[in-house]
């Protein structure tokens, strides 16, 4: 398999240019789908290759349960720097899987706790309006049935503090936005990208890109449903200002050199409708970046497959029958 086994670990770098450019050149729906797909494939290939290196590395450890033949020189010759790479891969894969499992567990715990909190309000009364002066509005993703509890549909939780300070039309835009999050299943994309970032830190920048793209997608859906982009922009902007005035001591919030997500969303809504194309035009920077990302992802998949098959053949030859 040679050096190919290492490529999927670094090929996620090819996805970074398109993550930055997609926001300006694609419809948020296309951005979300493209970046989620890239993150999922690149994350899976990177984990697969790490797994292959772990097999080679584990076979060299004294007292391992793998067949003795798997530590033969022929197997080690298949991977460059087999000893160092194999030994390094074990803690890396362990860390990646631990962080991924923790993230998944936390996701399920927060979802379950929120559903339990909302259980006091009957499921028919959606959106759940909570008598709380703090202004907030959340989309709570649906939870599938588990042994011991029924499936719960996705819900919208909004505080009275938020509803009272927005006018009727703005509230309509808010509900349309949260409803779009639920019907378009944005939490799945968000979770997939999050897990990809856990298994390969090079994919971390895709997290914020997809988070922003899903918000923009929900904004566009809301604007379509209420039929007024300016109204939607006003609802987003005013809700953010209301939240800020309610919690003025947000010291931890770091102001970067670029505008934050909310002003960018409002500016995008005040601008024209984004083009519905699924792919940027070929001869633009965004088009080239998308091509690089697609090529990188394809190469990553091929390398992972090649390495897996190669190792399988080598190990099969080394296993005494």
């Amino acid at each position, binding site marked *: 398999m040679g050096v190919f086994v290492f490529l999927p670990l670094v090929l996620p770098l090819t996805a970074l240019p398109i993550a930055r450019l997609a926001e300006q050149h694609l419809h948020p729906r296309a951005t979300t789908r493209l970046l989620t797909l890239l993150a999922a494939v690149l994350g899976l290939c990177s984990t697969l290759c790490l797994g292959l290196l772990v097999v080679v590395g584990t076979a060299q450890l004294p007292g391992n349960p793998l067949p003795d033949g798997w530590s033969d020189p022929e197997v080690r010759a298949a991977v460059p720097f087999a000893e160092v790479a194999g030994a390094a891969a074990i803690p890396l894969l362990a860390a990646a899987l631990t962080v991924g499992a923790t993230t998944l567990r936390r996701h399920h715990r927060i979802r379950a706790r*929120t559903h339990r*909190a909302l259980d006091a309000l009957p499921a028919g009364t959606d959106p759940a309006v909570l*008598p709380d002066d703090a202004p*907030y509005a959340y989309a709570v993703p649906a939870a599938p049935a588990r042994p*011991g509890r029924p499936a719960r549909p996705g819900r919208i939780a909004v505080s009275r503090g938020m509803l009272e300070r927005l006018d009727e039309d703005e509230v309509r835009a808010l509900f349309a936005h*949260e409803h779009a999050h639920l019907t378009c299943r944005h939490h799945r994309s968000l979770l997939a990208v999050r897990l990809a970032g856990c298994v390969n830190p090079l994919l971390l920048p895709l997290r914020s890109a997809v988070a922003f793209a899903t918000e923009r997608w929900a904004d566009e859906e809301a604007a379509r449903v209420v039929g007024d982009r300016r109204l939607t922009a*006003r609802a987003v902007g005013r809700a953010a200002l209301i939240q800020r005035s309610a919690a003025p001591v947000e010291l931890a919030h770091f102001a970067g050199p670029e505008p934050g*997500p909310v002003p960018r969303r409002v500016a995008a809504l*005040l601008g024209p409708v984004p083009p519905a194309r699924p792919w940027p035009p070929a001869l633009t920077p965004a088009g080239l970046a998308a091509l690089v990302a697609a090529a990188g992802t394809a190469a990553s998949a091929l390398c992972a497959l090649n390495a897996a098959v190669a190792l399988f053949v080598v190990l099969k030859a080394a296993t005494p029958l």
Partner: protein
Amino acid sequence: MGGKPFGRPPGGAGKPGRAAPEAQECGAGGPEHTRRRGQGQLEAQVLAALHRAPGPAGAGWVRERLGGDLAYTTVMTILSRLHAKQAVTRERSGRAYLWSPAADEAGLAALRMRRVLDGEPDRDAVLTSFVSALSAQDEQLLRALLDRAADEDSGTDEARGG
């Protein structure tokens, strides 16, 4: 005491045993999850009953309103649990307590929701918020954007009117 009728629940007479509330709550004695869900429903029922009360009510009154098939201790257990969650308040009246709702079911939900929001710093990854936090710079930029949009709106309105 041998003359007692059969089939009487252990919690029904005089001083009830410790197992009584559990046995009552889970009805047919189902598995753990049925009991837990049953508790949540009972809490909601007790809260609803307190809401319909003309004023602070005793546990006996609540028990009657719920149909009287619950043990007194069960009602007390639920009321104490609601009190621990700050969903009801109580005042002493002679040897007993009088209970009144601190908040309704929605208040209970809001209380729990706040606990999730305050206790889970990483919640934004699961619960998609309508808007994220603003920095001071963002706030200025946002106000400028909204003001400009409002000006343009009034501009087009005037144009249409004239």
